[in-house]
């Protein structure tokens, strides 16, 4: 197995919060991301799932360099991708790009599609007019739009088309990693499948590695090779999607999987794996006190670590 393309090691992102008090004496620290470690292999899609506020998007912003980590390291192809030795914006741009959730806020309303694709190309040294034209036309075709549509402004497109434009913009510089921040959750259900299939096609075509942020588990099931379940700033369970979906161990992960509407279960054909009793953790280990009901973000969690329970399937457990 080759080395991962992206490695995140012990990532912490903390925000100061003023908890009231006349003189701001209630000042505390919010641990949005708390010691997160994961790796992304070349050509795979890793999904980061969890409920709102668990730190998924903060992790995505940290990978993109839009949020400075408090501590920890992010490495791209073994080279530092965060901190003082991180590459500049220009080098970073050719390594990783992001597709945003809201297709209505992610395109500049005053720029034609063409202009918003041509500007980054020119910035990165593609100056020959014919080459710019070619690359934009090819890219628009790859995402299912015509070159002629590129002359239009964003408000002339539907949500699904806008998301295609957002994807084109993310791919125009030929990045290796694409962060997908809830790429289809703002779209109509009828269009989601189209965009998901487009993303899968593009992944094959360009050999992309996806880091997908999502809370929609049916999308995750369809797209991911591996899944990492996040709960309040930490990864509680990670592994190949089959093991996670069929054999979830951690209480939070089991709850999450149980929320997927499964047609087989609805039709009474099969039983959900999560219907049974909570499985016991491996001998010598216990589930850490994660405060499942009312987690305290400002408290340091119990010391715990990821333990391999199946091949490549890790669960966060604490020593007894």
């Amino acid at each position: 197995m080759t080395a991962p393309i992206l490695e995140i090691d012990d990532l912490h992102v903390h925000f100061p919060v003023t908890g009231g008090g006349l003189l701001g004496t209630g000042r505390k620290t919010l641990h949005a991301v708390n010691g997160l470690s994961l790796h992304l292999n070349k050509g795979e899609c890793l999904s980061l799932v969890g409920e709102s506020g668990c730190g998924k998007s903060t992790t995505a912003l940290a990978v993109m360099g839009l949020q400075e980590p408090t501590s920890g390291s992010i490495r791209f192809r073994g080279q530092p991708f965060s901190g003082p030795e991180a590459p500049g914006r220009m080098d970073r741009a050719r390594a990783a790009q992001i597709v945003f959730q809201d297709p209505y806020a992610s395109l500049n309303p005053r720029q034609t599609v063409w202009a918003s694709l041509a500007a980054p190309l020119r910035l990165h040294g593609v100056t020959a007019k014919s080459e710019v034209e070619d690359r934009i036309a090819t890219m628009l075709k790859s995402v299912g739009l015509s070159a002629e549509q590129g002359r239009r402004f964003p408000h002339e497109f539907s949500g699904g088309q806008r998301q295609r434009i957002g994807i084109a913009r993310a791919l125009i510089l030929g990045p290796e990693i694409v962060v997908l921040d809830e790429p289809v959750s703002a779209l109509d259900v009828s269009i989601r499948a189209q965009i998901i299939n487009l993303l899968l096609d593009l992944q094959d075509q360009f050999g992309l590695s996806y880091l997908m942020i999502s809370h929609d588990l049916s999308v995750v099931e369809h797209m991911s090779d591996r899944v990492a379940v996040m709960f309040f700033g930490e990864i509680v369970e990670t592994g190949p999607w089959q093991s996670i979906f069929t054999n979830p161990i951690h209480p939070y992960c089991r709850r999450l999987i149980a929320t997927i509407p499964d047609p087989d279960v609805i039709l009474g054909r099969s039983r959900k794996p999560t219907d049974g009793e909570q499985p016991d953790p491996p001998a010598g280990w216990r589930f850490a006190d994660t405060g499942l009901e009312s987690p305290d973000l400002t408290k340091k969690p119990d010391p715990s670590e990821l333990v391999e329970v199946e091949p490549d399937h890790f669960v966060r457990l604490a020593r007894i």
Partner: protein
Amino acid sequence: MKLGFNIYLGGFLTLLVILGGLLAQWIAPYHPVLDANLMNAEVPPGREFWFGTDAQGRDVYSRILYGAQISLTVGIVSQLINTVIGVVLGMTAGYWGGWWDDLVNGLTNVMLAIPSLIFALAVMAVLGPGLVSLLIALGLTNWSWTCRIARSSTLSLKSQGYVQAAQTLGYSDLRIMFTQILPNMMGPILVMATLGMGGAVLSEAALSFLGLGIQPPFPSWGSMLTDAREMIRLAPWAAIFPGLAIFLSVLGFNLLGDGLRDVLDPHMRTRKL
């Protein structure tokens, strides 16, 4: 319906001032300064002198047309200076935040606390009277609201996906500000600039009235009021017409600003989409 009315009346009055100022050389029946004739002093409005004459026998109508040049220059140039200062400070403060934001905020609050006319008076006292110092004085004193609007627009635009995307595509901060943020906040900035033009015309009139603005004999609406003050009972027309000119042009700029605000407001645009 109201939407159309504001912008049309405002646009019409503004156009009137612009045309009057631009065409003064050709449409004014008399020279504003040289055609002084004491034999014709204080003639009431009539066929020969439409708006009457002042104490020196100069045609009030011609002087108002030439005065429009001053008012327009003051309105446009001082608002240009204000807008550039306000946008540059507000946008950089909103985008970069930190100590620079604190500094700009503090400065803005100080400027808002000082009455701008008093501040302009102080600047004029230092620079001396004249058109150029008038432009500088008015250009340096009214940028606080523009700055605040630029800052808050930047703060809200900064979190938009396309601004973040520009950053991940490798755009520099300055390029992001000028290509992504500025074009998307031009609406409110333009409205502020137009509304401010009315205020600048009024301030010019006030400063000239106090003798610190445009120096006689060259006509400005404010200095015409000063001259007419002494004989307001004998020749009220010499004060009424410049006063009306100030009133109508300020009304025109303000209505135009209001109208632009309505037109540029995205919520008003749904009809067109």
